[in-house]
């Protein structure tokens, strides 16, 4: 590999996190995943266990990119959210209760990604503040209700700038025309997601639109 080789963002993140910590993760058992490999993933608004109301959409608006770049068809998250609201499901809690066969019938989705936002927001200290995001996710097959994959991730970034390299690399893929200055956890969500889906031998396997499809995750 030389420096000019195009390297997917995910791989970079994996390389960087390897540099950062040499953490050993237990390899994930992909038996169920391989039995029902999805092409399309419907991502519901997260169940928000944090105290920050803005976390629901602050997070939801960061999760399409990593899953789509992983090679999956991702349903339009805002359209899905508004469609479900118009059809009698005003909250994420109610959306998470919809029977999966009904989801398959309405949208044709192969799998649903259920996200729980455990923490979202900023911790303020004397000299700086730290934005932190913690999530756990479950990917479930809509036809058999089998759990295909699950993961947990957390990321934090201090206002004094540690960890900026990683965040900037991810941000480089996105235009920042609409600013999100008042909500640093929104940016940190991207960091948490990058670690979550590209978590080496415990991450989400690549989907059909990825050049790495059918290679090990």
């Amino acid at each position: 590999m030389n420096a000019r080789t195009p390297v997917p963002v995910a791989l970079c993140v994996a390389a960087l996190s390897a540099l950062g910590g040499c953490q050993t993760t237990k390899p994930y058992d992909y038996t169920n995943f391989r039995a029902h490999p999805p092409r399309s993933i419907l991502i519901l608004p997260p169940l928000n266990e944090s105290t920050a109301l803005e976390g629901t959409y602050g997070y939801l608006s960061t999760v399409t990119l990593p899953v789509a770049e992983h090679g999956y068809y991702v349903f339009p998250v805002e359209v899905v959210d508004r469609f479900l609201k118009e059809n009698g499901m005003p909250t994420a809690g109610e959306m998470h209760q919809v029977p999966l066969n009904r989801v398959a019938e309405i949208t044709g989705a192969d799998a649903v990604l259920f996200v729980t936002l455990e923490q979202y927001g900023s911790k303020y200290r004397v000299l700086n503040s730290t934005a932190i995001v913690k999530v756990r996710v479950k990917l479930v097959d809509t036809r058999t209700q089998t759990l295909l994959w699950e993961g947990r991730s957390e990321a934090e970034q201090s206002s004094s700038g540690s960890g900026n390299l990683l965040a900037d690399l991810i941000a480089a893929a996105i235009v920042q025309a609409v600013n999100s200055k008042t909500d640093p956890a929104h940016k940190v969500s991207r960091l948490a997601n990058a670690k979550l889906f590209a978590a080496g031998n415990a991450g989400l396997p690549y989907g059909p639109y990825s050049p790495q499809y059918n290679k090990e995750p």
Partner: protein
Amino acid sequence: MKWLIWLVATTAAVAGCATPRTLYTWGNYEELIYASYVTPDKLPPESQVEILEKDYQQSRATNKRMPPGWHAHLGYLYYQLGKPDEARRELSTEKAEFPESAVFMDRLLANVHKP
């Protein structure tokens, strides 16, 4: 020597990150979703459509297609603006680009056809 090879490989990987290659042109898609929920008053559907259409022009220049859901999202905005022809065009494009969306797009298209 093993550590040296490792170091070189990782450095190369990190250096490669300077120009992230993506499958799709993302433009403002996700940040618009964020803004439409957080500051809906500042960003009416008209402005969102304008920004998305600009992103689309850029994607044609770079020859990298729009991400999954993007055309459906734009179609939905056109629908909200009372422009059924544009809405149908975008929803159909989504279906053509990503056949996985067919069931959902047909459902939305059926709504657009209603007066």
